[in-house]
């Protein structure tokens, strides 16, 4: 099945919310997942991994990256505050017992150097221990608009949708009759 970009983003946001994440984190992770999907990464599977990761662990990863970002934020105008890295870390099964990430800044304007460049952002498919910045543009930059749909298999969709459904209120007669502010039938 192919999802539109907005359908995929909505699926990400709803399922992550269903898992109990804060709205702002759902928003950031959804945008990051879409960026990964558009650049040929198996974003639905990464999302599923995120959903199968304990929330506290995800927040812990957030804090690691955010803390490192903060260390350099005065040099990069704070623009490096990007959860795409977190998803990258999840997708390579990073062991949280390992030492903190090493973040270094060469000079501005920066891009991350690794396998994937998305605008000014990047992460590697490989195991990441070090994040570094440099000024050189990477040759294999992939444009965001290259891919327009997100392929997802039925099994993965079903597994993700389980979490989405947790955001919908159960239907009751009271809700059905009063919640929308209109009668059920319309024949004027």
């Amino acid at each position, binding site marked *: 099945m192919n999802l*539109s*970009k907005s*359908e995929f983003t909505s699926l990400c946001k709803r399922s992550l919310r269903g898992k109990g994440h804060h709205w*702002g984190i759902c928003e950031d992770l959804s945008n990051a997942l879409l960026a990964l999907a558009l650049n040929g990464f198996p974003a639905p599977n990464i999302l599923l991994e995120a959903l199968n990761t304990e929330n506290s662990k995800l*927040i812990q990863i957030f804090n690691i990256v955010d803390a490192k970002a*903060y260390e350099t934020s005065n040099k990069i105008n704070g623009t490096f505050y990007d959860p795409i890295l977190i998803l990258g870390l999840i997708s390579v099964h990073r062991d949280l017992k390992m030492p903190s990430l090493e973040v270094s800044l060469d000079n501005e304007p920066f891009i991350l150097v690794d396998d994937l460049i998305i605008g000014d952002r990047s992460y590697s498919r490989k195991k990441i221990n070090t994040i570094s910045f440099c000024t050189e543009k990477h040759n294999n930059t992939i444009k965001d*608009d290259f891919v327009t749909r997100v392929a997802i298999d039925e099994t993965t969709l079903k597994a993700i949708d389980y979490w989405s459904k947790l955001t*919908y209120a159960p239907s009751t007669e009271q809700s059905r009759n*009063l919640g929308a502010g209109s009668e059920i*039938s319309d024949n004027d």
Partner: protein
Amino acid sequence: MTLNFDDKISEFDVTLRPPEKVMRLSRLGSFHQSRLSFLRILLRRISAEKWKFSRKIFEIGDDCSGTAVYTYQLSGRAYSLIAFAHKISDDERSDRVIATKWDSTFTLFDGIPSKKDINRLKHNVPNQEAGRVSEKEITLSRANKSVRLWDYVVNCLSNGQQPDIQEIEKVGYMMRTTAVYGSGKFGAVDYTEISNRPEFGTPFQAEMLTVYMIRAFVIDLLQHAAKVKNPNKYVQLDSKFCEMLGVGNSTGLGMAPFLINHPQLLNNWISAKEKALARIRGLNEPKKACIELFKNYIKRSNYLIESWNSKHELQALKLDGLRRDKIILDNYVEKFNFNSSYPFNTLYEWAEQTLGEEAQELLVSLILEPFGELIDDLSHGMSDAKQFTTKINGSMLVGEFRKKTEKHYAYALKINWNNSKNNELAWYVSEEKLEPRLGNRFKEEGIEFYEQPLQPSRDVARMHLDLSKWENNKSIAEFLMKHPEHRHIIRRCQIIFNNPYAEIQDNTISSDVIPIDLLRAKLSFFGAFHFDPRSDRWVRINMFKGAPLPQTLDNENCDNWTYPEQSAT
């Protein structure tokens, strides 16, 4: 009418109306369509670029079900409305999202569909949310008949008679849409994939095009029904009646979250309108022809107001006030000295002191009407290419952030959030066809758990309380590491700091909030009029009523229809 506009914008500095005035729900809920409304922009483009309209297929049977295809051909592209007519029983007809059958269903196809395309869509479009469309489709829509008017007009035409004009006016449309989905919904193409096409550069142009073509289909279907009923005696609907008929729309809460979820876009819409008003208020000596046209529109607008009916208590009260104020406005304009300096500024300032918000906003729309050459360019800035992707600036210092929050959200920080009345409602989505709903969190058990983030005022207040415990020289990044629950509202605040009209400056979960104010604000930008609430969270409106049909649309009539001529008599 087109005017040659050679007035310069004067040095006179008319400041934009402040957000704390414009962005209140009561004012947003008093907005009227204007020449910067999206359907107006669409009709100007179609006529300027001379798009060619044709009916490609009309395979509708004697039972009035079947398929039709209408195409607009423009330079290098074509867009086709594929319409499916259905036969349904009265008890199956519902305007709610939870409906599963409709009188007609539609999709806007990118190009001219092949038989294979139509066959694929025949198995999906009639199912709407339960079906699936593809990247070749831009919108998905459906409409229900106004049964009373439909049967009446079909009977008249089949007996060789034209309908009574009063009956047509009472309803104003033969069918009303109950949803026009776009931008990637149910598999359709994402807006970002087509937003670089000039014809879709302004928001909601594909949706407006869909509705405009639906209007043509509905008239054809109506006449077909009359012909089938009495092939020997039937007559075509008089063209003046065809033009009088718009397309209705029945809208519920699904539309309200959009404005809250798209702050940057909302800012761009309101900014365009406010800049337009300021440009005209800043004219020292507006062209005589523009003044005459304005006076003409003032008179002609009476017909629109007279034919606007609503039985709903809220709207009936507003209409009474509008009618009273319109008499005062007419008298004032009649005697007003347009040779004075900055006449439209004087007129607006008088209105602000004298009239209610409904009449003030009507006046704003009327002021914009004659000045197309001065303001139409503002429509180019109404989109938002970067929506949804704003990243948080983590390096902003807490002190600066707090100061800006207190400036932009002063109204929210004054609210007593411990008072249950100020916190009574919760926006949620039902599992029943994902229908958006609004409930009382203290009475409907469990709905708070499903609450959507549609209460920025309360969330800002909560965030501000936590932020007040932090030192000014700490960064927002540090704050968010400790308080990830505020991440969404921090991002929102940073958007609002740079976009003054991005936030609705009211409490969206208060016991006395009127959700239809949100709906009306959006619908006015679509170009709707004759707002007729069915409740405080449900409204019916009319679109394209009085507009030329595709066959007659041209540069002369593309704008000069919203205030019908007959009212000037």
